[in-house]
């Protein structure tokens, strides 16, 4: 896997999610906004070697946790873990099923991007609830049904965004060099 391409794609995805994504925000429906990072993690999980995919998922999740507005505790502190674990869970699930799906279809990336937003949010909620059980932390407070609806809206919107982003990824798949240099056959078809 070409590390330079992954780094560039990560920087662009982080920058997109923290700034330009506001262009697509549906303000009248509770600020539903699509995310680029789940699309990237789905693409990497579909094609990269297993170990590399898991490592990249941890790193990208930690970077998302350190982004503005994510898991902030005040005074600039961040909770590192919710997104990192969510990305790992998503990657793990995709690794389990990637051999039985049509990986080079944009619709596959879009569907997995939709699912990844749900999985990441579920892990995020689990981590925050677990954190709230610790005697030294305040209890987690949920957003109720409104947040649940917003999550599904975000998942659908991200799935739609995954169509053009997935097309870009698949068009440049040669640059990513996903095939294993030591194996006899490529890890992607």
């Amino acid at each position, binding site marked *: 896997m070409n590390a330079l391409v992954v780094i560039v794609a990560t*920087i*662009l995805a*982080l*920058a*997109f*999610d*923290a*700034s*330009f*994504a*506001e*262009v697509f*925000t549906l*303000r009248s429906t*509770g*600020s*539903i*906004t699509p995310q680029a990072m789940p699309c990237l993690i789905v693409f990497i999980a579909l094609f990269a070697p297993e170990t590399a995919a898991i490592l990249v998922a941890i790193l990208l999740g930690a*970077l998302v946790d*350190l*982004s*503005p*507005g*994510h898991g*902030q*505790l*005040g*005074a*600039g*502190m*961040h*909770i*590192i*873990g*919710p997104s990192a*674990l969510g990305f790992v869970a998503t990657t793990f699930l995709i690794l389990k099923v990637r051999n039985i799906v049509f990986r080079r279809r944009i619709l596959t990336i879009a569907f997995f991007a939709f699912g990844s937003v749900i999985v990441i949010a579920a892990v995020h909620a689990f*981590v925050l609830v*677990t*954190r709230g059980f*610790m005697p*030294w*932390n305040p209890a987690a407070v949920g957003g109720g049904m409104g947040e649940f609806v*917003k999550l599904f809206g*975000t998942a659908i919107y991200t799935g739609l965004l995954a169509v053009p982003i997935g097309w870009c990824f698949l068009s440049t798949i040669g640059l990513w060099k996903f095939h294993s240099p030591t194996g006899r056959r490529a890890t992607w078809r």
Partner: protein
Amino acid sequence: MLLSLLPATWLGWTSDVADLVRVPVTPFSHIGMMIKNWVRPSIEPFDLPTDEQERNDLAVAERDHYRQLYHGQMLRSTELADQLRMLQALPESALRNPQPPLVVSVDLTGMKPSDPSGFIELKLSRASLGRIREGDIAIVGRDIVGRIARVGMTRMELLPSTNKESGYLRAVIVPANPLLDDRPPLLAEILLTPTGKGAFTSEVPVNKGVQKGDLVVLDDPAWPQAGIGLGLGVVASIEQLDEAPLRQTITIVPRRRAREHANVIVLGTGSEATP
């Protein structure tokens, strides 16, 4: 998993790590914010056009009046401070008069678009160094959009005033058109509660005559003096409380939000930058 369970007091290092990992992202994010603002510019409120001239005349008259009073008090307090310094044998630098705030324009470089009250990342430029401190007020036009939550190594963070972390705010409700309105110029003193979803709520007695569209301005001594009198929002809805017939619950919506703009003005309380 273990990291995410640590108490907040053990996570201070994450702010420095975030500063460092955001270094390569911030330039692209900054460009993204500028393009976003060009593609989807903020919708400016109509800002009470019906009485703008009268409002400006009134403001200018009030400003001149209070400037006179301020200078008078300043001279008197300087005189008293000199006397006190001599009596207590304090150095020349002690008991100085308060400095007016420094006006610094700061660009936005990042945020979480799906969270209308989430932290906003600001560019830390050389012009801001030393001038901006934590707790300083950020404004757009005449409206408060938040306070500086942190000045880091490579960036600053803005806490929108509608974020729950802002806590309760003391404010007053004034009519939107004071010259055309026969209601008193100050309708009610209220305690605002940020909802965390881009608005405030409060309760007000029914007999105060608060109406939709009335302005809510800051009157909180816990905030920097420069922000007193600046707008926090407008009354967007009024609902009768069934359990308390003599009180109403009101929702206040900010007229301007930092996330809808490419830059904000920070009223810095730091020292003037040295040339």
